[in-house]
C-alpha cells in the first residue's frame, strides 16, 4: 500500500498533486447541506479549497453540484501546512473574499489525514461559534439548530449566525450531478485562483515553514507482515488453511475444529 501512495520522502508531505482528484466525502455532504439551505432560504455559495493547481477538479465538481463560485488557494508557499496554518490561511481568504459570510460549512474530517482539526481551528481564527460532527442542521431566522451524537449524548444545540458547522456523512447525501451542472462546470468557470500575496501573507508564516508541527518520518506499520500465499483448487486451499490454522481459528470461535479421524 505504502509504495502506491504519492508520498514525497524528501519533504515528508503528501504529494496531493499526484493523489487522485476527488472531493473528500464529508466535504461533499457539507456542500449538500449548503445547497439544501440555499433551496430553502436563498443565499450564495462559495466553495473554497487549498491545494495544488490540480485541486481545480474538485472545484469543478462543486460547481457541477451547484456552488455559485469557487476560491482556489494555490501557492507553493502554502504547501505542507499543518492544520494550524491551513486554518489561518483559509480564514484570511474568507475575510477578504467573503467578508459578509453567514455560515461556514466544512466536512467533519478528510479521508487522507483525518485530523478533523481544520474546522474547529477555522472557527477560532474567524472568532465565531463552531459546532463539530453535526448530523443534521436547520436554519431558523438567524439561528442554526443542529443535532448531533457526541460521546453517547444526543444533543440539540443552537447558535446564531455567523457560525461554523462541520458536517458528518450521516445525512445530506450528496445529490447526483445534473447534466446542466456538468455543462456549467466546463463552460462557465467561476473559479478564482488566490495566492499568498493576494492574501497579504508573508510566505514564511505559512506552508511547511510556518507550521508548528513537524513530521519526522512516515512508515508503514504493516511493512514487515509475514504473508502466506495459497493458490490452487478451492478445496485444497481450504484444507491447507485448516491444517495450518485450525487451532487458532478454533480458539477464536471457541469451537473444536479438529477433523474426525
Amino acid at each position, binding site marked *: 500500500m*505504502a509504495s502506491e501512495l504519492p508520498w514525497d520522502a524528501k519533504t515528508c508531505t503528501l504529494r496531493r498533486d499526484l493523489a487522485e482528484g476527488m472531493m473528500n*466525502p464529508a466535504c461533499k455532504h457539507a456542500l449538500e447541506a449548503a445547497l439544501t439551505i440555499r433551496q430553502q432560504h436563498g443565499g450564495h455559495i462559495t466553495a473554497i479549497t487549498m491545494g495544488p493547481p490540480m485541486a481545480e477538479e474538485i472545484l469543478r465538481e462543486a460547481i457541477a453540484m451547484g456552488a455559485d463560485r469557487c476560491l482556489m488557494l494555490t501557492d507553493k508557499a502554502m504547501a505542507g501546512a499543518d492544520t494550524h496554518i491551513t486554518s489561518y490561511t483559509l480564514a484570511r481568504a474568507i475575510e477578504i473574499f467573503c467578508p459578509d459570510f453567514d455560515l461556514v460549512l466544512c466536512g467533519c474530517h478528510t479521508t487522507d489525514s*483525518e485530523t478533523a482539526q481544520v474546522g474547529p481551528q477555522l472557527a477560532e481564527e474567524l472568532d465565531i461559534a463552531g459546532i*463539530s460532527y453535526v448530523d443534521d442542521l436547520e436554519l431558523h431566522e438567524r439561528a442554526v439548530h443542529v443535532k448531533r451524537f457526541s460521546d453517547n449524548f444526543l444533543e440539540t*444545540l443552537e447558535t446564531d449566525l455567523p457560525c461554523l458547522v462541520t458536517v458528518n456523512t450521516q445525512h445530506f447525501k450528496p445529490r447526483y450531478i445534473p447534466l446542466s451542472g456538468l455543462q456549467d462546470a466546463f463552460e462557465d468557470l467561476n473559479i478564482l485562483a488566490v495566492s499568498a500575496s493576494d492574501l497579504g501573507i508573508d510566505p514564511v508564516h505559512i506552508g511547511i515553514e510556518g507550521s508548528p508541527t513537524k513530521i519526522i518520518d512516515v512508515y*508503514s506499520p*504493516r511493512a514487515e507482515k509475514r504473508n502466506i500465499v495459497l493458490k490452487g483448487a478451492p478445496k485444497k*486451499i481450504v484444507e491447507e488453511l485448516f491444517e495450518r490454522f485450525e487451532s487458532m481459528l478454533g480458539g*477464536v470461535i471457541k469451537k473444536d475444529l479438529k477433523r474426525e479421524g
Partner: protein
Amino acid sequence: MSEQVPEIWVFGDYRNYFQNRVTLQLLSRATDLAGRLNASVCATVFGHGVDEWVGEYIAHGAKRVYVVEDESLGEYSTDLYVTLMERLAREYKPEIILVGATTFGREFAPRVAKRLGTGLTADCVGLDINDDGQLVQTAPAFGGNLLTRIITPEKRPQMATVRPGIFQEIPHNYQAQGEIVRLPLPEGLPRDRVRLISSERRPPAIQKLEDAAVVVCGGRGMSGKSKFKNLYELARLLGGEVGATRPVVYSKWAEEDALVGQADKHIRPKVLFSFGISGAIQHTAGIIDAGFIIAINKNPLAAMMKMADVAIVADANQVCLALIKELKKRLRG
C-alpha cells in the same frame, strides 16, 4: 519553586467515565513520559460536583489536579472549557497537554491549540520522549495505512489528542496523595455562544459488527447478490458478522449498516475474512485494527492481499463455498 518542575497535563474527560477510560489511560502514559522529563503529571477538571473524578485521577496517577468548579460548568461546553483551558495553560505553562480523542476532545483540543498558537497532533496511537526531550507523537496518516511521527519543536505546550484504548491504565491506588488546586471561575468569562437545547444520554450503541471476534467482509469480487448471501452462512458457522464495502451496499447486495470503512464502521475482529475486496483506502481504513487477516482475491496484487496474513489467490465465492462445506464437516464431528 514548584513552577520549575515541567508539567504534563491530562484533560479530565469524565462524561463517560465508566465506558471510556481514556483519561486514565493518558494519566498512565503521562506517568511514563514524566519519568523521562522529571516532570509532574497533572489533570484538569472542569464541571460541577466533580470531586469523585478528582479522587479517581489522583488514584490513577495525577500528582496535582487543577479544578474549576461552578454550576455554569455542569454540562460540557466547548466554548467555556476552551477558554478555561487556555487561561490555565497561560498561567501554569505546561510542557505537554494530552486530550482523549473522544468526540468532545477532538472538538475541544484544536481550539485550545489554536488559541495558544501551538501545534496539535490528532488521534495519536503512540507517545514517546526523544533524546532532545521532545514529545514524539505517532499518528495514523492516510486513513491509517501509514503511521507518521510528529514533533512540535518550538511552540509550547506540545499537544496531542490520543485514541482511546491504546494505553493501559495504572491500577487504582486510593492511598495515593495528590495536590488539589481549586481555582475560582475566572472573571469576565465570555458567555457561551452555543446554546444547549437538550442533551440526552443514550445507552452505548449495540455494536455487533464492531465487537465481533470474527468478521466476514465481502466486496464486488463476490460478483452477485445471491453469491454474496453465502457470506452470511459462513459468518453464522463462525459465530461472526458480515461486513461489506461501499460498492456492495450501493448494489444492494448488503444493508447499509454492514458498511465497513473510513467514514463507516471501524471493526477490530481477531480474525477477518476478506472476500473479493480490492483494498481501497476508504475501506481498509476501517479494518486496520483487525488481528489476523485472510484475504481471498483473484488478483494477487490487490492492495488487500498485501495487508493480509494469508493471501488466497482464487475465486472468492468458490473459496467461500469450500469453507462452508469444510466447516460443516468439522463442526458436526
